[in-house]
């Protein structure tokens, strides 16, 4: 019992340290991985909209996006991570770190769009999924347009 408690404490404190000190490189890697995974899911949903519609596959993909969107990714934009390399060089613009309310508005719209997509995906209504997918894509774009450097 004592060992278990100790172990729990140890794990807890390790997790706390990890949380307190997210390395810039890790933060950027996690960001990039999260966006890449959402990209995979968006591509899957589009393939289902354009081709044969498979309800299960769309549900899985929409749930992935919803989960990531609601994971609190804002925490990965740690100070100093406006520049640096994760898997590749980050393309975030420094304005993302200074435009607080505007970024928050885009992020909120994104979350709502992701939630909506997951909701309609569950119904299997392809037309509604297409509309929600378009809205979600537009919210992706609004952030890309404003807070991502062109290459």
């Amino acid at each position, binding site marked *: 019992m004592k060992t278990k408690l100790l172990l729990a404490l140890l794990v807890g404190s390790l997790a706390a340290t990890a949380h307190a000190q997210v390395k810039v490189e890790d933060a950027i890697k996690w960001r990039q991985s999260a966006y890449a995974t959402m990209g995979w899911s968006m591509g899957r949903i589009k393939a289902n909209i354009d081709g044969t519609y498979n309800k299960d596959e769309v549900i899985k993909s929409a749930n992935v996006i919803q989960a990531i969107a609601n994971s609190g990714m804002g925490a990965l934009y740690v100070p100093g991570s406006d520049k640096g390399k994760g898997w590749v060089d980050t393309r975030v613009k420094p304005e993302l770190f200074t435009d607080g309310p505007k970024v928050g508005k885009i992020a909120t719209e994104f979350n709502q769009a992701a939630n909506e997509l997951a909701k309609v995906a569950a119904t299997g209504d392809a037309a509604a999924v297409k509309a929600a997918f378009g809205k979600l*894509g*537009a919210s992706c774009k609004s952030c890309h347009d404003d807070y991502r450097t062109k290459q």
Partner: protein
Amino acid sequence: MNSKRILLWDLPTRLFHWLLALAVVALVVTGKVGGNLIDWHGKVGLAVVGLIVFRVVWGLVGSTYARFCQFFPTPARISAYLKGEWRGHGHNPLGALSVFGLLAVLTVQLLTGLVANDDIAFVGPLYELVGRDLSNLATGWHKLSVNMLIVLVILHLAAIMFYAHVKKDNLVKPMVRGWKEVPSGESAQGGGMLSLVLAIVFALVAVYAASGRWLPEPPPPPPAAVQTPAW
């Protein structure tokens, strides 16, 4: 008043012009709005490939005032125009600069757009040919050079307003009706059915090439024996 009516812009040139105007507006709007409209952006872009190739061929084999050699803006012509010594019809030497400028910027937009991606779920039809890195680069150019396009279109409209109000010369009417009242000059010649068919064939071939339909199909799904794992 000793004026006569000449055919200035042949019907294919006029159709090209108004279809292109419509398409450019549609492209800028769909490109800026995004969302599901990005699919239309891709389709209209393909149509514009056809329009531009048509116009380039028509600039070689079309009727008089549509031909590039007729209005190619050489330095001599430009300086003559600026001194007020130009007496031609159709695109004046400065307007010709704008024509070639628009054609060039649109060509850049088409070439980059065909291989672009939006990092969401859309890729241009020839994306597979260049891969991710080059595609990202092309996408960056695509988004920058659209500003040049918008500037040229505004300049184009401003010049038309200037001609209408200051020089009392309505440039829009001939582009709609084809003919223009002029003191002297000849009607456009050439650009017959054979030329038209040639230009259309080139345009269709270009659209097919740009559509990527000829690209090898993605590998077929694995045979049913190899089941997608349940996880």
